[in-house]
C-alpha cells in the first residue's frame, strides 16, 4: 500500500509536466468531441490517433490515448440529454431521465450531475486501480462463460424495470431486440443467420446505427410533425438540484462508483452493463421508483458514474494480466505495443514510469474534464434553446454521417432509416425503446457465453456448479419477481385512477 502511494507520487510528477498536461488535455477534448458525434466512438478515435502518437514520448502518447477513452464517456452524455440520441450503448440509459430533465428546462442539472458523477467515478476507480490493482485481478478471472452468462441474465432481468407502463409492450420491445441481435454470423459456428443474402448483414447490425435510428431519428420524425411545438423545453433553465434531490443523487454516485469499478474488472462485459444495472439498482432502492423515467437526477448520476468508473476497473486486467476487457482497451493495448511495451505484469517492472504516469494522468484528466464540463454544462444546455427547426435537420445530417461512418457505406443510413421508422411507430404505440437496444447489446454476448458454458460442462450443470453464477441467477429471479409485482401494483392503481 505504502509502495503504491510512493509510486503514485512518482507518477504524479510525470503526469504534471506541462507537455503531459497538454496532451492529456488534447486527449480529453478529442474524447469529448467524439463522444458528442455519433458513429465515431472512443475506440475509433483512439485508433485514429495512434499514428499521431508515434512522434511522442511513450508516456505522453499513452496519456493522450487514455484521455480520449474517458473523455468520450463524458461527451456521450451530452447528446443523450439534449436530443435523446445516445452516441454509444453506454449512454442509452442516460436518455431515460436525462431527456425528460432537459424537457423540463433542467438540462443543466442533468449535465452537471453527470459531470460530477463521472468525475467521482473516474477518480475513485483510478484510486482502485492504483491501490488494489493486482489484488483484484484474480476476481476478474473468476468470471468464466457460466458466470458471465449469469451476469448477462441478471442485466437482462433488470431491463424489465425499464419496460414502462405495460409489461406486454415491454416484452415486445425485448423480443425485437433479441430478434435483431440474431441477424448475422453466429458467434460459435459462423453460420449466417437471417442475412437475407445481404452482405452487409453478415457481420450483424451495428448497435450505434440501430440506436441512432430507434432513438435519434424517431425523435426527429416526431419533432418534424410540427416544428413550432417540437422539443420545446420549458424555460425554467435552472441548473440547481432541489434540496430533496441532493441525498439520492450523492448516494447514487457513490454506489455507481463501486458498481462500475467491479464491472470493469470482468472481461467480456461492455460499459452498457454497469450503466444498466446501476439504473435499475437506483430505481429499486428509491423511495419513489415511479418517478424514474420522468426526469430524476439520480437516474442520470448513477449510470453516468458507473460507466466512467468502469474505465479504471477495465485498466486493471490490462495492466496486470495483459487482457483487453473492452474494444477500446484492446486498441489501447495495441498502442502500448506500438511503443514497444507489452501490457502485462512485467510492465510494472520494465516501465513503471509509463504505468504510474498513466494512472496519475487519469487524475489530472478527470480534473480537467470536470473543470471543462461544469461551465460547459450551462453552455450545452443553451443548445436546447436552439429552435428545433434549425436543430433537428442538423442533428439528422450528423446522425446520417455517423451511420455512414460505421461501415463506410450508405447501407448504414438505410438501416438507420428503417429502424427510425420502426422506432417512430413504436413510440406512437407507447412501446419503450430502451429495452430493445439494451437487449440487443446483451444478446450476442449471452448466446456465446451460454453455448460455451453448455459445452465446457457438457450440459446445463455449469450454471449451478459455480456459486457466483448461481447467486446471480437467483438474484435475477428475485429482481424479475419484484419488478413484476411492482409493475402490476402500479398498473392497478393507474387503472383505478385512469380508466372508468
Amino acid at each position: 500500500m505504502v509502495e503504491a502511494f510512493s509510486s503514485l507520487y512518482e507518477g504524479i510528477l510525470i503526469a504534471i509536466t506541462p507537455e503531459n498536461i497538454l496532451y492529456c488535455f488534447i486527449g480529453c477534448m478529442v474524447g469529448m468531441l467524439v463522444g458528442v458525434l455519433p458513429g465515431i466512438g472512443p475506440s475509433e478515435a483512439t485508433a485514429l490517433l495512434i499514428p499521431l502518437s508515434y512522434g511522442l514520448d511513450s508516456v505522453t502518447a499513452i496519456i493522450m490515448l487514455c484521455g480520449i477513452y474517458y473523455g468520450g464517456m463524458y461527451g456521450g452524455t451530452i447528446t443523450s440529454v439534449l436530443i435523446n440520441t445516445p452516441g454509444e450503448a453506454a449512454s442509452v440509459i442516460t436518455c431515460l431521465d436525462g431527456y425528460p430533465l432537459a424537457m423540463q428546462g433542467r438540462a443543466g442539472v442533468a449535465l452537471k450531475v453527470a459531470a460530477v458523477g463521472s468525475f467521482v467515478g473516474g477518480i475513485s476507480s483510478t484510486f482502485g486501480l492504483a491501490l488494489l490493482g493486482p489484488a483484484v485481478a484474480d476476481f476478474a478471472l473468476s468470471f468464466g462463460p457460466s458466470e458471465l452468462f449469469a451476469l448477462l441474465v441478471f442485466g437482462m432481468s433488470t431491463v424489465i424495470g425499464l419496460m414502462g407502463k405495460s409489461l406486454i409492450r415491454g416484452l415486445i420491445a425485448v423480443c425485437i431486440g433479441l430478434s435483431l441481435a440474431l441477424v448475422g454470423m453466429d458467434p460459435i459456428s459462423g453460420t449466417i443467420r437471417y442475412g437475407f443474402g445481404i452482405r452487409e448483414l453478415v457481420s450483424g447490425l451495428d448497435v450505434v446505427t440501430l440506436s441512432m435510428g430507434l432513438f435519434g431519428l424517431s425523435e426527429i420524425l416526431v419533432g418534424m410533425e410540427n416544428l413550432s411545438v417540437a422539443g420545446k423545453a420549458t424555460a425554467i433553465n435552472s441548473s440547481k438540484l432541489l434540496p430533496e434531490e441532493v441525498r439520492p443523487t450523492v448516494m447514487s454516485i457513490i454506489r455507481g462508483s463501486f458498481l462500475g469499478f467491479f464491472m470493469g474488472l470482468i472481461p467480456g462485459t461492455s460499459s452498457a452493463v454497469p450503466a444498466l444495472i446501476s439504473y435499475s439498482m437506483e430505481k429499486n432502492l428509491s423511495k419513489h421508483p415511479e418517478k424514474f423515467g420522468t426526469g430524476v437526477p439520480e437516474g442520470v448520476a448513477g449510470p453516468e458514474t458507473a460507466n466512467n468508473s468502469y474505465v479504471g476497473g477495465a485498466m486493471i486486467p490490462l495492466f496486470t494480466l495483459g487482457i483487453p476487457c473492452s474494444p477500446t482497451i484492446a486498441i489501447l493495448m495495441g498502442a502500448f505495443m506500438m511503443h514497444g511495451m507489452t501490457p502485462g505484469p512485467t510492465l510494472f517492472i520494465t516501465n513503471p514510469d509509463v504505468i504510474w504516469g498513466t494512472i496519475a494522468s487519469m487524475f489530472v484528466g478527470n480534473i480537467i474534464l470536470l473543470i471543462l464540463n461544469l461551465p460547459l454544462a450551462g453552455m450545452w444546455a443553451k443548445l436546447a434553446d436552439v429552435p428545433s427547426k434549425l436543430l433537428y435537420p442538423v442533428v439528422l445530417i450528423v446522425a446520417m454521417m455517423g451511420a455512414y461512418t460505421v461501415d463506410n457505406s450508405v447501407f448504414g443510413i438505410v438501416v438507420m432509416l428503417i429502424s427510425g421508422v420502426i422506432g417512430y411507430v413504436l413510440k406512437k404505440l407507447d412501446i419503450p425503446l430502451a429495452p430493445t437496444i439494451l437487449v440487443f447489446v446483451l444478446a450476442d454476448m449471452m448466446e456465446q457465453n451460454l453455448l460455451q458454458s453448455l459445452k465446457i460442462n457438457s450440459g446445463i450443470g455449469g450454471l449451478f456448479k459455480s456459486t457466483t453464477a448461481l447467486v446471480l441467477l437467483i438474484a435475477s429471479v428475485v429482481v424479475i419477481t419484484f419488478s413484476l409485482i411492482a409493475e402490476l401494483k402500479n398498473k392497478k392503481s393507474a387503472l383505478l385512477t385512469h380508466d372508468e
Partner: protein
Amino acid sequence: MTNQNNNPIRKWNAGAIVGVLFTSCSVYYFVKSFEYPYRNRFGVGPGLFPRWVSLLAIVAGVVYTLVSIFKDKFTVGDTFPHGKELLNVLTTILAILVFVLIVKQTGFLVASVLLLFVLFIRSYPVWKALLYAIIVSAIVFAIFKIGFSVPIPVNRWGF
C-alpha cells in the same frame, strides 16, 4: 369531430396491425430457424437460440395483438398524425431516401445541401434555407472528411 374522421383508415386498430405484423415476422423467424441446425457436430448448434427467441416473440406478439383488440386500443387516427403533420414526416423520410439514392453520384455536399434545403424550406425563407443548408453541410463535411478522414462519398470534383 372533423371530417377527417370519415377516412376509414383512421378507425383501424394500429396496435392490432403492428401486433399481427410482428407476429408474422416472428413466425417467419421461427420457420427459418429450422434451416439452422439445433445441434451440430460441434455441440449446440446455431439453431437453438433463434428457435426459442422466435417462440417467445410469437407468444408476445399474439398476446399483444389480443390486448390491442380488447383493451388498450390505439386507432390509427388517434395515434398517428394526419394532414400537414403527416406530410412533414413523410417528407423527411423521403428526403433521406433521396439522399441515399443520389449521394454516390452527386457526392456528399450536393446531396446534403438538397436534403437540408428540403427540411429548412418548411420553416425558413428560400435564401435563408439555402444558406443554412450550405453552411451546415460544409461544416459536417469538414469535420468528418477532413477531421476524421472518413471516406465520405464525393463526386469527381472532390466534394
